[in-house]
């Protein structure tokens, strides 16, 4: 294993005095000016592959020129694949003024990928060979899809990345100036990202040039530049793209690409990055792994004493955490000092635990529609239960606060989406008087920090940052189980082998006439079995873990809407124990 750490300390870093970025085309031009500074490092075997900023810029220019020459201007172009240098080149080549990059989630099922490709009107698809069959199927059946390009090189009927780049470079050498002439208007859509829809298919969030660069500039102004970062989350996730990849390219922080999730700990030691952008699941995993290892080595008691000592010294302004807990930091490559966490609510226990061991944890609050960050808590040690102060360029308003100051969080600013793709109804429902209604409840504390208190919408947010709309699953269940008259999907907790876990449960009110003489137990068994088939067609994170059968129709409002809260109150406890007569495990 290559242990020698590359030294990037001599590379220039973005400073707050530098002028703000205006669009992604300008970012590509700035990369050109960063010259031989390293922008991205990949790994092949145990070797590092270095990509300079200048090379990245030139590759983007060649690919954008090639796309332009193929007539793919002002089109939606989908991007699907694993994290890589080439993924970044493809994204920038599309979003630097050529068209709109449709960012597809590689964890989706084939049916969902097909639906999003169709719904986004994508004229072209860039994908890795992992998704070759998806590409072939869509090229044949999707009437909008004109071109398919492979991000990695594979000998097949579709042009690959290297061929496109070679052709683009030839055009440039012949004097093609189309890249230089590309115009990025601030309101031009740059990215289209699907988020869970409240009804039927998912909603496509449009993010303009202005939206994306607003967040990039804010990150650059509020986070001190580090020498290197590691890209762990999928790049199609707005949190990874616009809190890590794009701002770090701009800030001249070297991006190290984690090739596979299973190699993460190895790669932290291999690349020795100084920061990472993560979701709460990682903080939990890091924390649990550290203590598991310490217990195994018989060091847990000693570390607990050291933490008490370190905490008392910290109160006096003496910080010896990284020296005291050197053994822990060696496990993470010795350089990792900053973890920016967002995408889902984070348990303060893990933030506190890792902070005590010497990691700086910033907790962000945001959503795809806010490109994504609206507030960032950089003081998690003193404000563990807050999501921080709103960013200066984001207006935040607590709508209709109750006597405790708690109300719905509304946002306005350059980072806020203009709306959903081809969905005027959803757009109108989400905005009021120019404010975006987040659906989150919160209140402003006296020191200007925002505290979140709950959600207005019934969105289920998992600790890996994935969002699940109950209505979406309810619609799938109703469509596939014809005997279901009413269904409510909700988040609940269950003890699984002694550990309390968040799970997704479905409460079904069924038409017993269709079961012709079957006992309640037999009906339950049938529903449980059928739910396995429903789950088989869903992405893993959306699967329904528990099925409960309601004895009577659900309580409704005057407008005939199910009162979800009442269903949860009545059935939530039932899912706690394995002995409930109404329960069936899916």
């Amino acid at each position, binding site marked *: 294993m290559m242990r020698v750490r590359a030294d990037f300390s001599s590379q220039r870093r973005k400073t707050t005095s530098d002028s703000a970025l205006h669009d992604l085309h300008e970012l590509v031009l700035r990369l050109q000016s960063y010259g031989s500074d390293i922008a991205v490092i990949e790994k092949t075997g145990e070797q590092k592959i270095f990509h300079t900023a200048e090379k990245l810029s030139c590759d983007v220019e060649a690919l954008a020129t090639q796309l332009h020459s193929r007539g793919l201007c002002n089109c939606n172009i989908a991007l699907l694949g*694993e994290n890589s240098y080439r993924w970044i080149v493809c994204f920038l080549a599309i979003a630097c003024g050529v068209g709109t990059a449709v960012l597809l989630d590689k964890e989706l099922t084939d049916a969902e990928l097909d639906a999003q490709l169709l719904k986004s009107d994508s004229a072209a698809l860039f994908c890795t060979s992992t998704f070759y069959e998806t590409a072939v199927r869509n090229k044949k059946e999707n009437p909008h899809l004109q071109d398919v390009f492979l991000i990695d090189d594979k000998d097949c009927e579709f042009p690959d990345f290297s061929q496109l780049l070679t052709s683009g470079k030839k055009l440039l050498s012949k004097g093609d100036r189309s890249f230089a002439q590309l115009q990025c208007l601030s309101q031009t859509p740059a990215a289209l990202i699907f988020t869970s829809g409240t009804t039927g298919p998912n909603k496509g969030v449009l993010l303009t040039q202005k939206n994306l660069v607003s967040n990039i500039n804010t990150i650059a102004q509020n986070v001190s530049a580090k020498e290197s970062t590691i890209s762990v989350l999928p790049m199609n996730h707005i949190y990874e793209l616009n809190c890590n990849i794009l701002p770090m390219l701009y800030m001249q922080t070297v991006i190290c690409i984690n090739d596979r999730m299973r190699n993460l700990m190895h790669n932290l030691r291999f690349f020795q990055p100084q920061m990472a952008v993560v979701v709460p699941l990682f903080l939990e995993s890091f924390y649990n792994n550290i203590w598991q290892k310490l217990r195994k080595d018989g060091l847990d008691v000693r570390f607990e004493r050291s933490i008490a000592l370190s905490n008392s010294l910290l109160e006096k302004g003496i910080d010896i955490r990284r020296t005291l807990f050197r053994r822990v930091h060696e496990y993470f490559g010795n350089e990792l000092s900053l973890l920016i966490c967002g995408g889902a609510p984070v348990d303060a226990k893990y933030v506190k635990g890792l902070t005590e061991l010497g990691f700086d944890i910033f907790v962000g609050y945001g959503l795809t529609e806010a490109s994504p960050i609206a507030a960032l808590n950089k003081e998690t040690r003193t404000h563990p239960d807050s999501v921080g102060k709103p960013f200066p360029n984001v207006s935040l308003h607590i709508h209709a606060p109750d006597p405790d100051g708690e109300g719905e969080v509304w946002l306005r600013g350059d980072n806020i989406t203009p709306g959903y793709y081809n969905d005027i109804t959803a757009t109108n429902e989400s905005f009021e008087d120019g404010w975006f209604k987040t659906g989150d409840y919160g209140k402003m504390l006296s020191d200007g920090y925002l505290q979140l208190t709950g959600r207005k919408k019934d969105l289920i947010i998992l600790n890996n940052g994935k969002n699940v709309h109950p209505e979406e699953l309810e619609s799938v269940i109703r469509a596939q189980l014809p005997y279901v008259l009413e269904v409510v999907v909700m988040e609940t907790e269950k003890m699984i082998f002694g550990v309390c876990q968040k799970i997704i449960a479905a409460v079904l009110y069924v038409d017993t006439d269709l079961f012709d003489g079957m006992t309640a137990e037999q009906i339950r068994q049938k529903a449980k079995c059928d739910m396995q088939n429903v789950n088989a067609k869903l992405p893993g994170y959306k699967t329904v873990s528990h099925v409960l059968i309601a004895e009577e129709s659900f309580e409704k409002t005057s407008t005939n809407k199910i009162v979800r809260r009442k269903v949860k109150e009545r059935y939530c406890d039932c899912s706690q124990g394995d002995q409930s007569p109404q329960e069936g495990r899916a």
Partner: protein
Amino acid sequence: MIERLIAVVGEYVSVDRKDITEETSLRQELGLNSLDLVNLAVSVEHEFGVEISDRKLTMIKTVGDMIRHIENAE
């Protein structure tokens, strides 16, 4: 095959082996999250000498799915 796989799974999630069957779902019943699944896949690869791609892993939901994948890969 199934006994070997159950041994790997049972050791990994520290549960009684008799509680694990082909129908046992990895996420819902064993409570594995996406990072746990990645680690379990590595253990299975070592035990059986087969490759489980990240894409394939997103489609493996039960112990039975895992068995079928190993059988097809061998």
